[in-house]
């Protein structure tokens, strides 16, 4: 048995393409409370296409909260009002009949809008190219568990690696700073033995590219942690600050 459908007013950001002035368009929809947020948009797009209108462009892929493709700012919050879920995991039962929902793209200089609710997050890829890897020499296959790692440390590294790179931290930050994302990517290596040889070079390179891409600076408001669908901790940012400052102090680059 399912609950009765609810009626909602959607105010969706429509923008033809990059560098075009966008604006909000109103849509009245009737939707099942059991449907997901993206299913609601699918239904809306079906009806728009039937009317011969341009459907709303938005991104999604796995729809189970692990790929980091989806991402909408819903009533001012990236991934909507429910903590620790991605947009695709948000269900309409979290809204009430008659609600008005504002749907906006992630807004940041470093995330230019492609169309409507789609943004270009290639800046994150560039940060990853700069240092989101470990260099491994070829040779024989190492034995499993050859390097002992304390359980707590492994768990902490895993928690950092849980980042899906969706960009909600940038979208939530009042400064559009990418510190939570970059610090998670720095930490997942910085914590483990395999990440040690390139630890300091990595943090310098990743921070450098992050700054070049036009993200803002962190002012420790911790909005990123509150909105992160994976609950990435701001302790990672603290770790990256420390790694960066130490690396700059001890490196032999003048």
């Amino acid at each position, binding site marked *: 048995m399912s609950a009765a459908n609810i009626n909602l007013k959607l105010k969706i950001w429509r923008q033809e393409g990059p560098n075009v002035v966008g604006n909000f368009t109103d849509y009245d929809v009737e939707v099942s409370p059991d449907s997901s947020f993206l299913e609601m948009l699918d239904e809306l797009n079906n009806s728009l296409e039937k009317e011969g209108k341009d459907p709303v462009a938005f991104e999604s892929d796995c729809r189970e909260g692990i790929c980091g493709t989806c991402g909408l700012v819903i009533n001012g919050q990236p991934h909507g009002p429910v903590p620790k879920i991605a947009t695709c995991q948000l269900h309409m039962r979290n809204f009430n009949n008659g609600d008005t929902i504002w749907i*906006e793209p992630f*807004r940041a200089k470093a995330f230019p809008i492609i169309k409507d609710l789609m943004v270009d997050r290639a800046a994150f890829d560039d940060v990853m190219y700069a240092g989101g890897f470990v260099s491994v020499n070829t040779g024989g296959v190492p034995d499993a568990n050859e390097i002992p790692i304390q359980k707590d440390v492994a768990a902490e590294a895993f928690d950092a690696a849980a980042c899906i790179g969706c960009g909600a931290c940038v979208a939530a930050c009042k400064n559009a700073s990418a510190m939570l994302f970059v610090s998670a990517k720095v930490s997942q290596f910085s914590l483990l033995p395999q990440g040690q040889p390139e630890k300091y070079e990595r943090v310098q390179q990743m921070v450098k590219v992050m700054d070049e891409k*036009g993200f803002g*600076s962190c*002012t*420790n*408001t911790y*909005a990123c942690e509150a909105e992160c669908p994976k609950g990435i901790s701001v302790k990672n940012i603290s770790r990256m*600050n420390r790694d960066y400052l130490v690396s700059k102090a001890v490196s032999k680059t003048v």
Partner: protein
Amino acid sequence: MGWLYESLNSSIGKKFIMAVTGISLILFLIFHLAGNLTLFAGPEAFNGYVEKLEGIKPIIRIIEVPLALVFIFHIFNGVRLWWENRKARPEKYAVNGQSKNTNVFSRTMIYSGSIVFIFLVLHLATFWVAFNFTGEPHEKAYAYYGVVADWFQHLWYVAVYVVAVILLGFHLNHGFQSAFQTFGWNHKKYFPIIEKIGTIYAIVMSVGFASMPIYFYLNGGS
């Protein structure tokens, strides 16, 4: 020294400057409040305290230079960060969700800081200038307490003072723990304690600095 310039101009470098200067100012405020509390012990205690500082004037002057630089760096860098960070999001959100994911202290640093800065100018123009540059040294020897007591008879001045130090408390409440986060000292065991100490510190500073103008205003200068 290219590496130093580059480091301090990176996003992490800029917050490091905020943290180092901020911690310096936090330490300064402790001494400032402790000294000023002699106001409650009467004219002799306060005048005696200022006289002691007068006695070591050359040292005070030397300390004042880095202190002024710290203030200037903190203010300049804070405004710069605010300005650059605004540009990182050229198009604003129609619905702002900040009240749901941040606390009021962290997102209003530029406003609380700006008002404290305006207050600082007024504060220096009234007290610091009067103490240092007006009147003959011998005549003003025991007049410091009087200058303070006189100013605190003006309701507007007391009101500005109280509002400013409350906002200073807001500023410090975020700034204290924020500095530790920036230095990379966010430890599961100690950080909650640092946050509490910061809040207690902020309240002590607000209440401490607000108590003097209120005390003098209510006592009518006696």
